[in-house]
Every structure is written in structure tokens, then in C-alpha cells.
């Protein structure tokens, strides 16, 4: 990864809206490096500044301070039509007065490419997104998924260095969204173009991305691969935003941590009070009295189909959720009040910085 050149770099970006006391910092000192050919995702709750960052990369807005670099060149103040960067808009923003083919060819035409090249390129794009029969339709005659593909083809046709996608799938229903996720991944691999993808859906981010930047309230909380972010969340926000997790607190002596129920678990953490987290699937529910298991009893069970969540009550007032595969057909679900033992998978308990 270290040898791959950087496509987009955001350097200490601050973006404030409004003046003086009422100013909101939509982005507060954000720095991100996106590699060439990467599927990079900006993930965070609504209002955390994802769209704002995308608009700065596209050139629709300029940062209050900081720089945007593209392949090493400072493009902070370049207008959008001078940047080899294209956007897939959340609302698609297809031109209603043009046909599908004219929409796809728009960028190339504005660049003044020869007619033959435009025609050929449009045909290639139509094939890529499997919309050849629709070439001469008006965009209003297409379904949501088809419009989505036209928007993609239109943005890809001028072969930009970077493609920006602002929650492109959020308007689609679940089934279509799953199909488009696969389609997007395929398009990215076939074209080799750097994708910067925005979503507030953590599952979508985990399944599609090479790397993810988790954002909240104008700050980048963590950047890493989906596995990094899921298994080693940097802080409480990331741990709770990505997937489900349990939070505990403990007392550390540097080499081991003591929980409220008196259990002592070996792990290295700064001395003093520490915040800990463990994923529900890292808990093992075993018969009471099993070697090393902490005593607990089942407070309630919640059935999710493949999985069942067991809400467990430990000594010292610890409440914790364990995820288990649902029992095979005919098997009995665990009853409320059943006494059990709980084991933590090795290395699964993490100390969080706050």
C-alpha cells in the first residue's frame, strides 16, 4: 500500500459556514489521503460533514482553510469544470431535456471531444451499465435503478481521475441496493478509477470499501480497512457506530484489568480506570462452572433468525449481550433466568481511548 501513489489528499481542511459566533464548523481539521485505484468510503451519521468534504473535492465549494491535492497538484481553488473529477449526485441530477445517450455524452461533448469519440464512448458506457436498449429514451421514462446507472455512466464517461459518489444508493429499495453494491464494485474494478463513496450505512461501508474514514461532527475518528475498523475501533464512537458492541469499564494495573464482577483478565492498558469494549460474537456462553468462565444468568433472549442475542446479567451489575447462532430446528432456546458461564474470546476485549 505504501508504494501506491496518492490520488486525493485533503490537508488540514476546515470548512465553516456562517460568520463569527454563529459559524458552524462542518469540517474541523480533516486530513485524508486516498490512494489511486482505491474504493474509499466516508462513513458517518447524517450531518457529520461527508457531503461538505465531497463538495470540496469536486470544487463546488472552497475550504475555509487547508488544501486539496489531486495527484500531488494543489486544486483547492480550481473550478469544478477544470477538475478531472466527476460526481454521482444523490438525486442523480440527470438532464431531463436530454436522452440517456445525450446525458452520458454530455461531459465529453463539453470537453470538445470529436463526435466519433463521443459516440464510441457513449456506446461503451451504455454496454458497461447494460442500458443499450434505453439509449434514446428520456431519463424520466426510466426506473430508479436505471436512472442510477445512467448517472454512473455519465460520470464515468469522461474517465475522471476520481469518481465521487454521495450516498448514491440511499434512494433505492433494499434488493436493488444490494444489486447496485455489487455493480458498483464491479465498475470500480473494471475501470480502475479511484472511488470516493459516501454512506451513512455501516454495513454498506464494510462490504464495499478498501478503506473507510469514519467521521463524526466534522472530525475524522478513524481511517482503516473494514477489518481494522471493526476489530480495532479507535474510540467509543467508532466502536458503537460500526456494528454492535458491549461497553464495560475496569481498573487496569498495566498488565491486567479487573472488572466490576472481580474477574481479572490479562491485557495491557494504561493504568487506572479504562473503558473496554467487546463484540457480542466474541462472547461464549458455556455451562456454569466451566473452567475460567464468569458466572451469569440469562436476562432475556432476542431472536434474529440466524442469530439469537442473549442479554446476560453478570455479577457486579454488568449487563452484556452475547450473539449466538440460533439453535438448530427442534433445539430449545435458552430460557430466561438460566444460570450460565461466560467466556471472552482471547484478545477480543479492547481498551478504548475516549
Amino acid at each position, binding site marked *: 500500500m505504501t508504494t501506491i501513489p496518492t490520488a486525493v489528499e485533503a490537508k488540514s481542511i476546515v470548512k465553516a459556514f456562517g460568520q463569527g459566533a454563529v459559524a458552524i464548523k462542518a469540517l474541523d481539521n480533516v486530513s485524508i489521503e486516498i490512494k489511486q485505484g482505491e474504493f474509499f468510503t466516508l462513513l458517518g451519521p447524517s450531518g457529520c460533514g461527508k457531503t461538505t468534504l465531497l463538495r470540496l473535492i469536486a470544487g463546488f465549494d472552497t475550504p475555509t482553510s487547508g488544501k486539496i491535492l489531486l495527484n500531488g497538484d494543489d486544486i483547492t481553488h480550481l473550478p469544478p469544470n477544470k477538475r478531472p473529477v466527476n460526481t454521482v449526485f444523490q438525486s442523480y441530477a440527470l438532464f431531463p431535456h436530454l436522452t440517456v445517450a445525450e446525458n452520458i455524452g*454530455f461531459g465529453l461533448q*463539453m470537453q470538445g471531444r470529436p463526435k466519433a469519440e463521443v459516440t464510441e464512448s457513449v456506446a461503451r458506457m451504455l454496454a458497461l451499465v447494460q442500458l443499450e436498449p434505453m439509449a434514446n429514451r428520456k431519463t424520466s421514462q426510466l426506473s430508479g435503478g436505471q436512472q442510477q446507472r445512467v448517472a454512473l455512466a455519465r460520470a464515468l464517461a469522461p474517465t475522471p481521475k476520481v469518481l465521487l459518489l454521495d450516498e448514491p444508493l440511499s434512494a433505492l429499495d433494499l434488493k436493488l441496493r444490494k444489486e447496485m453494491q455489487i455493480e458498483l464494485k464491479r465498475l470500480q474494478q473494471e475501470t480502475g478509477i479511484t472511488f470516493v463513496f459516501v454512506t451513512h450505512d455501516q454495513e454498506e461501508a464494510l462490504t464495499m470499501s478498501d478503506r473507510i474514514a469514519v467521521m463524526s461532527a466534522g472530525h475524522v475518528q478513524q481511517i482503516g480497512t473494514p477489518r481494522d475498523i471493526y476489530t480495532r475501533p479507535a474510540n467509543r464512537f467508532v466502536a458503537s457506530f460500526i456494528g454492535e458492541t458491549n461497553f464495560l469499564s475496569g481498573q487496569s494495573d498495566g498488565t491486567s484489568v479487573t472488572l466490576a464482577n472481580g474477574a481479572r483478565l490479562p491485557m495491557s492498558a494504561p493504568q487506572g480506570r479504562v473503558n473496554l469494549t467487546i463484540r457480542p460474537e466474541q462472547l461464549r456462553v458455556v455451562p456454569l462452572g466451566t473452567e475460567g468462565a464468569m458466572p451469569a444468568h440469562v436476562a432475556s433472549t432476542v431472536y434474529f433468525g440466524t442469530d439469537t442475542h442473549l442479554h446476560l446479567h453478570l455479577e457486579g451489575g454488568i449487563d452484556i449481550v452475547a450473539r449466538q447462532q440460533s439453535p438448530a430446528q427442534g433445539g430449545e432456546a435458552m430460557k430466561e433466568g438460566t444460570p450460565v458461564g461466560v467466556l471472552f474470546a482471547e484478545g477480543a476485549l479492547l481498551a478504548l481511548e475516549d
Partner: protein
Amino acid sequence: MANRAFEVARLPGFRTIALTAFVLLYLPIITLVIYSFNAGQSVAVWEGFSLDWYAKAWENEAVKGATYRSLIIAATASAIATTVATMAALGTTRRKAFKGQTAIYVMINQPLMVPEIVTAVALLIFFASIKVATGYTGLWYLIIAHAAFCVPFAYLPIRARLEGMDLTLETAAGDLYASHWQTFRYVTLPLMLPGIIAGAMLAFVISLDDVVITEFVKSGGQDTLPTYMLGQMRRAITPEVNAISTVLLALTVALLTAFFLLTRKNDK
């Protein structure tokens, strides 16, 4: 449907009132059209069908001159008014509310609010001094006066069209390498075109129909169709006036129907 909305149509006597209103509105117009085909001299006594009055009007040099002037003035004035209105609409819509916005709307729409007779007198005095100073007595006084009061009529449909337009489309055009001018030429203009055409047609009809301002501003021998007809009324009325009115009516209805169809398409 226990809680139905107040429906005026269910009030007693509604049918009678509505019917009376329609009769009062349309009966005179229908009569006018019918008597334009009268064979006799009267606009009140039917003497058989003929197209004589159309032929007479067609051969009348004064009518020809007035028609020609009416069309020239309406075409030129509506073209000017539409251009001004287009620029005004582009300048006043598609942006955050700004200081003085209401004042600008009021100013653009001034001709809709100031009594026409006041504007007419003001223009008469204003143009009179220019006539004295320059000696020019051509049609341009009428064209400029018409253009001025047609602006708000052209402005309203264009503004409505622009306000319904998605600004992201222009952002998208810029993203796809279009310069400001290309964005206007290939995205903004085609999308606002139905509004512009509708505005131009409305302005054309309004200009064609004007009496008060024209009567005040025109120099000798500059009658338009409406002022010519007004002049005729002062003498003996013949079905020739009916014939001219019928043609004007047909033209106006055709233009307004087209206007209606164009603006209705906006909603889609």
C-alpha cells in the same frame, strides 16, 4: 366522508348564479361573432349570412395599416419585454432570499399595480418632451411603451419555470466540464425555454390588446387595431368591427391556448 370540505357548488342557487355569469360573459361575445357574418348593415338585426364584412375589412387600407402596426408593435415589444423579463428572472430567482428582493419584485411588477391611465398620462408627457427635443415621431414610442408594460406578463411564467428548476442540474453541468456559458446554453436555457415562449406569447397578446396607453402615446396616423376600432365606434357601427374583433379573438384564443399548454407542461 362525514367531514367533507365546504363546497360552494352545493349551495342553493349556485347553478343559477353560475349560469347567469357564463351567459353574461359569453353571450355578448357569441353575438359579436354571429353578427360579423351578417349580410346587412346592422349589428343588431340579422339579414342573412355573408362574409362581406371580412372582405371589406380586408380591403380597407386603414385596417391593413392598423393590423400591420399592431403586429409590428406586438412582435417587437414582446421580444424586448421577454428578453428583459428573462434577465430579470435569472437575476431574481435561484438564490437565497436577498435584501431588497420584495422591492425588486414590486418594481418589476409595477405596471400590474399602477392604474394604466396614470402610466398613459405619464408616458404622454414624457414622450411629448422627447418628441419636441428630437423631432422623432416614429413607432418606437409605442414599442417602448408596450415593452414596458408587457415585462411583468413575460416575467411571471419565466420566473415560475425557473423556480421549479433543480439547481443541482447546473452544478452537474459544471462537474461535467461545462463552462458558465455552456451551462447556460446547454442546460439552463433549454430548461427555461417553455417559460420564455409562454411569457413571450402572453406579452404579445397583452400588447395586441392594449387601448389606453396606445391611445395616449400614438402620434397621428399611428392607429393600432384596437384604437382604430375605438375610432370607428364613435361613428356608425358596422359589422366590419365585428369581423375585425372576431379575427383578433381567434388569434388571442389560439395564443392563450398554446400558452396554457406550455405552462401546464411545466408541472410535469
